């Protein structure tokens, strides 16, 4: 879940009230916004939902709270003025980041807090909606003293560049990717292209080189009154959404917002488009889903608190206008949830239906339980190593080889395959406990994963039990008696035969078979394997398939 940082006095300014944090705790909670704590600078950390970009900034939080606290209900009445400037999109961007939309803010009146809030919102949209600027990046800059129209065009890596933000010398685009911190962080997104994207005014001032950095000249300060906001990238839907969220935030602050005419190779559009969609639903269905009995009048009030405009209402249907900044409403159930939120989760009554069903453990879990009970009863300590392991541990150190489920993108080599047997994990646990007193007795009951071409996903999990013991007096007889004690509990008709296994001492290893099929093996671990694990005492171990 995204976490945002807001300033309480800024929030109060937007709400035009003076709330303490504890007064807001419950309303925020009921809106699904959690107070996570405070930063060292005194900002409040809020956890907001992933599907609600409109709540990723203080302005959106204020907008939702205004509704919930009945300060201002219904859809926000933001006015969007006609375009004053134009953005021209160069066809040369077709192969890199062809999408561009833009909006304009006029008569802005920033303060330190509101400027920071805009930057923070921009960053959240970059990171999450934009997938770290891969899909979109946003630029906001002072356009008071540049000459429109603005062109979205390209620049060669070694052309004369511009002074990037926070620098005082001109760098070429290539140098920006190499030297500027943002260039190093996001350069990979455009590095491969012959020409990098560039936003430039008609009098030749560079505004920004998306998705990397703005120019120092157009730096946005709190003195800025005339601000351009562009969203460029590869995904038009997301670009349009991000622009709407930012423009809605500016409008919530009372700034004048203008659309911009975007001239693209395929025609002219005007962005942002703040037209709202309408949707109607049957109240009966909502009530049934939620288990409530809300009447139309109350429902309409609730919808307004949730910042919907109610267009029409009768005994059966409610028709609402969906706020233009909401992108999470795919189905009527999404609106039903808003109805429940507006009604208040605190007011819902947890009601257990009576379903006559009895609980039933999984068959294999019962078998595992017997294995665990037997082995703990024999004084063995249960250990739980990871299923993720390395070929070194699973095969090499054990003196074996084989195939295992193999991970394409492991976080480290240590966790690059799934284990195919349990004994290596036990050996590693013994190694970790080298300094603990002897003898030691440990066991595990758990899954191994085996490649199996005939299975649906190409591999199957198998439940096994394994135990190992280390100490001066540990030997084959002891561990076999433990293994057999376990097998006896499963009532299996066993045969014991001599067995060869590279991890165990020849002549001191046996296998258990049931109807000719191998069920497990037991033996004294080979001294070479013991030393591979940096151990110095005899180790004996067994591993068996649990009866299915």
């Amino acid at each position, binding site marked *: 879940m995204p976490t945002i940082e807001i300033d309480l006095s800024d929030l109060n300014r937007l709400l035009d009230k003076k709330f303490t944090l504890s007064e807001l705790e419950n309303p925020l909670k009921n809106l699904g916004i959690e107070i996570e704590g405070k930063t060292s600078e005194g900002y409040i950390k809020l956890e907001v939902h992933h599907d609600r970009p409109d709540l990723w900034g203080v302005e959106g939080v204020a907008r939702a709270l205004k509704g919930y606290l009945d300060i201002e209900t219904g859809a926000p009445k933001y006015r969007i003025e006609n375009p004053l400037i134009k953005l021209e999109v160069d066809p040369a961007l077709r192969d890199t980041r062809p999408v561009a939309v833009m909006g304009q803010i006029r008569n802005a009146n920033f303060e330190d807090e509101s400027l920071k809030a805009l930057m923070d919102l921009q960053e959240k949209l970059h990171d999450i909606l934009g997938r770290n600027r891969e899909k979109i990046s946003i630029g906001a800059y002072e356009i008071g003293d540049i000459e429109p129209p603005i062109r979205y065009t390209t620049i060669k890596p070694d052309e004369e560049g511009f002074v990037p933000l926070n620098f005082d010398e001109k760098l070429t685009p290539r140098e920006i990717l190499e030297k500027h911190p943002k260039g190093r962080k996001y350069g990979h997104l455009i590095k491969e292209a012959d020409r990098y994207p560039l936003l430039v005014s008609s009098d030749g001032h560079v505004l920004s080189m998306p998705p990397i950095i703005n120019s120092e000249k157009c730096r946005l300060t709190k003195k800025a009154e005339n601000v351009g906001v562009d969203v460029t990238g590869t995904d038009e839907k997301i670009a349009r959404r991000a622009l709407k969220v930012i423009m809605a935030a500016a409008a919530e602050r009372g700034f004048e917002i203008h659309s911009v005419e975007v001239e693209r190779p395929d025609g002219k559009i005007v962005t942002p488009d703040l037209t709202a969609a309408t949707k109607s639903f049957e109240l009966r269905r909502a009530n049934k889903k939620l288990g409530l009995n809300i009447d139309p009048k109350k429902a309409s009030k609730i919808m307004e608190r949730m910042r919907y405009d109610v267009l029409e209402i009768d005994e059966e249907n409610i028709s609402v206008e969906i706020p233009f900044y909401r992108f999470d409403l795919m189905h009527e159930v999404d609106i039903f949830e808003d109805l429940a939120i507006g009604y208040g989760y605190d007011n819902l009554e947890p009601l257990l239906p009576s*379903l006559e069903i009895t609980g039933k453990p999984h068959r294999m879990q019962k078998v595992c339980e017997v294995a665990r009970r037997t082995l703990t009863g024999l004084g063995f300590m249960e250990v739980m190593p990871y299923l993720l392991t390395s070929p070194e541990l699973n095969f090499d150190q054990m003196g074996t080889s084989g195939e295992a489920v193999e991970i394409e993108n492991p976080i480290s080599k240590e966790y690059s395959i799934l284990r195919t047997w349990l004994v290596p994990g036990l050996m590693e646990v013994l190694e970790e406990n080298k300094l603990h007193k002897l003898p030691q007795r440990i066991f595990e009951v758990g899954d191994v994963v085996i490649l199996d071409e005939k299975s649906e996903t190409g591999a199957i999990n198998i439940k096994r039990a394994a135990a190992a013991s280390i100490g001066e007096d540990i030997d084959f007889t002891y561990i076999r008696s433990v293994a057999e004690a376990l097998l006896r509990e499963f009532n299996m008709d066993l045969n014991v035969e001599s067995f060869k296994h590279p991890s165990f001492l020849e002549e001191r290893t046996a296998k258990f078979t049931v109807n000719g099929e191998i069920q497990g093996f037991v033996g004294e671990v080979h001294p070479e394997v013991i030393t591979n694990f940096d151990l110095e005492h005899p180790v004996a171990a067994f591993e068996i398939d649990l009866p299915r």
Partner: protein
Amino acid sequence: MSLKKEVEKLNAKKKKVLSALGENEGKASVKEIQDFTGLSHSAIMRAGLGLEESNFLKIRDKSREKIAITEEGTYYLEKSLPERKILRILAEKKSLPISKVPEEAEISEKKVGIAIGWIKRKQWGEIEEKNGEKVLKITEKGKKSVNNKEGDELLLEKFKGSEEIFVDDISEDLKSKISTLKSRNLIRTEEVKKRELKLTERGQRAIDLDLEVRKRVSRLSSELIRTGRWKEVKLREYNVTAPTPKVCPGKEHPQRRIIEELRSILLRMGFEEITGPIVESEFWNFDALFQAQNHPAREIHDTLSLLKPDRADIPDEELLNRVKKAHEEGVAGSTGWGYEFDKDVSHRTILRSQTTADTVRYLAKKPEPPVKVFCIDKVFRRERIDYQHLAEFPQAEGIVMAKELNFENMLGYLKQILVEMGIPKIRFRPGYFPYTEPSAEADGYFPERDEWIELLGAGMFRPELLEPLGIEQPVLAWGIGFSRIAMIRMGIEDMRDLHNNDIEWLEDQPLG
């Protein structure tokens, strides 16, 4: 003078000392004789010296070495050694500028030099120059040591619960670490002298002559019981308050105990247990859950994808087509995600990242309602392991399917689960999960921490998920935050303890 006469002439105190030795199988410390006879230390010594002169006994001075923990040692026992703190940070960050050490590891400036010295001596890290700045980097040995304590730390841990220990009580491996800890002023050693009185052969004979002293035996043998001779002998009194050696039962792992507690609650609530494959297709893990193919959780840095096996079957092609349609253009009145669904992606194999894959597989078999099932299974994520993240961990979740179920019923189940766990004060909040709507989260209130803690997430499966499966009844789904339960139930704050296999730690986790 005959021995018998000589014994008879001994004064009362001397006799007492002699018989005390007799009762203690021939030797005892002054302290033990004190306990036995009630005589003062000086009286025993006076009597003892006299008896030594008459060759009844010998007095010997024995010494033992004792180690005591210093104040600084106690501090590090609690907070762990400064180099260990640095190592933990190095394990996460791989490198750390020396100037940042005091702040990051919370070590005072004047200790930093010492701590780094130990990092180097233990070969946990190396110092490199980077842009004119000294930077500490973790070594291979350091990586290995992140989860493995070294001898000096284990020795220090021996002081958990006791302020002093005797050198001859610790293992040879650890003895070698005494000088290390001593040089760091974390422990100090001290010689403790003990004076022991031991009967000579003559003394033994003197006691045998004295018929009033019954023969003492230490062990009640089977022979004594069979022959009835137990009536004639006197059993040596044990010091029943003396410490006994530590033994420990075989126990289930703390993680297992949490799993088993949850299982028993859910079985009691009438849920049936199911399970599913660890190697899963993206189809069941994501597509069938209506999680868009470009959802961030599906990206390569979140989910572990597989080289081998590299392709899964999807037995029901029709189902795949219906799911594709739900994603692309929507079903059941939904707008869908509006992107081009790629069937090849559905066939890709991954390690199960959410147990909802198990429950949806179950639903696809169209079970006859009403149905209540749960699973507790391992899920895998591409996470670097640290105190709050694991690459694999258990997840518990369940579903309820029946004809008439609504959101308030959903909350009813959440409440019951928490009540069964003994958490009576709960609250609900709106939640967000990609495949449920409406969704909720349930918090439990913990008075001792004065804190609401998020414990459950839940919701009603989206119509876009149910319709392709052909499920017509509403389905409630919930999941339990395993790490939070571990924290509440076992006091596990560091998630790595869910896989902690340190035997001493396991022995110390009480079952009760």
